[in-house]
């Protein structure tokens, strides 16, 4: 019996350790994994005395489910623009008090006022980028990757990684067919689906974040990726290069928002202001390789940033790209059913 009570006492102590008695100020952020230089948390704590708890999600869709079912769990979330639009519609977001975020002045005005948040009340851009093809220059020429068509070229059978993300993959196929990425015409969607099913025998794998490491390792010749992943891979393997095809592609912004149910809204605003500070934005940008919306940070980085076409795409690349818009629930049903067919085609 003595032993048993000893063990019990031990467990109580242990569980007490898990929950440090926290009278401390905290801010709970919910972010993509590996999407921020986490050493900034320490600086933030030193400056404000607020502790940052970080949680991670893997796709926009997963994140939205969690925000809906766990009210109060998150203070700062990082959705992509089309999800910001959806979350505003569902009344999930709180208005950000811009007076508490003076550093928002550094945000590039061309990225503000998009269709997802026309009055800039709910979101502040955090990072942006494009979707394109990461390719092995020893196997593929730059000319070939100027069109999405290379993904349907039988020469590269079993050399192609596609993206396991419904909007991105359907979107690029629609672009290749000459349609809008935001189309709601079921006939166009059907055409894109058939195109993807026809491509299936050539595809090596459908995946998202595993791609970058595998490309570094030379597992495939072509991969559909986000620009930041491309830069990460190119840094580790000099044979890799990145291209945004001529037909156009998707340009996206991941924003910072505060859920309506946030328990620490003031701390959240302080943290967002901190993220917008040029030196901090610079550290984040240099850590994750995505394009920064922060003019102050870009100035600090100088030529390293502006000369790099993948991280700082030229205006004509941006011009041929398109933003995602939120797709209403009934059209999403169509999207999901078609995507299911693609995923399970033999």
């Amino acid at each position, binding site marked *: 019996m003595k032993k048993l009570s000893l063990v019990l006492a031990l467990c109580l102590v242990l569980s007490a350790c898990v929950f440090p008695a926290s009278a401390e100020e905290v801010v709970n952020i919910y972010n993509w994994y590996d999407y921020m230089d986490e050493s900034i948390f320490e600086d933030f704590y030193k400056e404000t005395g607020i502790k940052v708890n970080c949680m991670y999600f893997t796709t926009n869709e997963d994140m939205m489910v969690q925000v*809906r079912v766990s009210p109060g769990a998150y203070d700062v979330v990082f959705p992509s623009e089309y999800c910001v639009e959806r979350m505003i519609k569902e009344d999930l977001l709180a208005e950000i008090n811009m007076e508490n975020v003076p550093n928002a002045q550094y945000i590039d005005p061309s990225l503000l006022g998009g269709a997802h948040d026309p009055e800039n009340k709910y979101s502040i851009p955090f990072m942006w980028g494009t979707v394109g093809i990461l390719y092995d220059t020893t196997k593929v020429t730059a000319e070939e990757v100027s069109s999405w068509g290379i993904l349907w070229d039988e020469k590269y059978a079993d050399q192609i990684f596609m993206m396991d993300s419904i909007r991105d993959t359907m979107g690029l196929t629609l672009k290749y067919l000459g349609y809008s990425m935001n189309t709601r015409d079921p*006939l166009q969607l059907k055409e894109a689906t058939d195109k993807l099913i026809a491509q299936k025998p050539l595809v*090596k*794998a459908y995946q998202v974040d595993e791609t970058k490491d595998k490309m570094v*390792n030379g597992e*495939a010749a072509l991969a559909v990726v986000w620009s930041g992943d491309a830069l990460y891979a190119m840094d580790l393997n000099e044979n890799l290069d990145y291209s945004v095809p001529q037909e156009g592609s998707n340009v996206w912004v991941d924003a910072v928002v505060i859920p309506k149910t946030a328990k620490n809204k003031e701390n959240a605003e302080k943290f967002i202001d901190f993220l917008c500070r040029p030196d901090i934005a610079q550290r984040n940008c240099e850590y994750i390789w995505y394009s920064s919306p922060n003019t102050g940070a870009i100035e600090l980085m100088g030529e390293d940033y502006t000369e790099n076409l993948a991280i700082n795409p030229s205006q004509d690349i941006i011009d041929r790209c398109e933003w995602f818009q939120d797709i209403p629930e009934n*059209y999403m049903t169509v999207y999901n*059913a078609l995507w299911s067919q693609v995923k399970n085609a033999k």
Partner: protein
Amino acid sequence: MSNLQVPAWGTWVMLVGFVAFIVLLVIYFKRNHGLKRPIFSSPYTLWIIVFTIVPCLLIAYYAFTDVNGAFTLDNFKNFWDSNYDMNKELIAMGFNPADMGFARGTVNVDTLGYSLWMAFLCTVICLVLGYPTAHIMAERDFKLGPTLVVLFVIPMWMNFLLRTIAWMSLLEDNGLINGLLEWLGIGKVQLMYNSGAVLLGMVYNYLPFMVFPIYNVLNKMDYKLSEAAMDLGCDKWKTFYKVTLPLSLPGVVSGITMVFMPAVTTFFIPRMLGGGNTEMFGDLIERTFLTANNWNVGSALSMIMMVLILLSLGLLRKVDPEGEGGSMI
């Protein structure tokens, strides 16, 4: 999310159930004038009602209702015809799905069939590999049996996700196995991104669950029986066929149960080793809930899975009515 509101009756049902439980307990005490042994299991009974039966009923509730909480069978129709919801929307938009080439979508049914087939293959391979292993381990002159059990358990203590990822490093095109093959002059083979790799991952994860129950039964078996058979003139194979095999059947049955059932709902492995090219039923359920955000159809899929498993369990009970094989204990 509108379909996650607690209906008022839900709270009441739970409250009434709890009160009824307490009342029954009190009546029981009064009747029996004190503490009889069966009452020891009452905390567990309460536990199982709250954390097993109520959740199962919840799944059933969501499976038979739509987003607004009204009764419907549409979720099951969606299982049979994966285009059902889509076609309904298309008609509402003024299209004719039949003209567009959208007949019945077989995705969900096909996925279930594929999962059952994969689980079946996995079980057969585990049995073929596992039975001889258990048999050798349980032999009387083999002293290392208990040590080997430990050696089989240790990998299970390593995280299952990490083990699967380690297989990825082995099987990749530029992975270790292909490196070895190339060094031997055989050349590269594509080992990953197909059903074979998924099957390998499954066998790797579930093999110990086949070995343990068979080993346990064989180990406890009275060796004098097989010796007697030998004395009476049976040769080695006949002894095995007539004595050992029938006696080890309970172990085989529980081994099959313990491999087949988790194998049907495997998820994560197809995504990592199969390259996400073909989904299994576990992936489908997860995607329906957490990505497509369709809780009602997700519940219907879960329910179908549950019924299927209970049915196959009933079938196995017929073979092994006493549950002699027990679990891996």
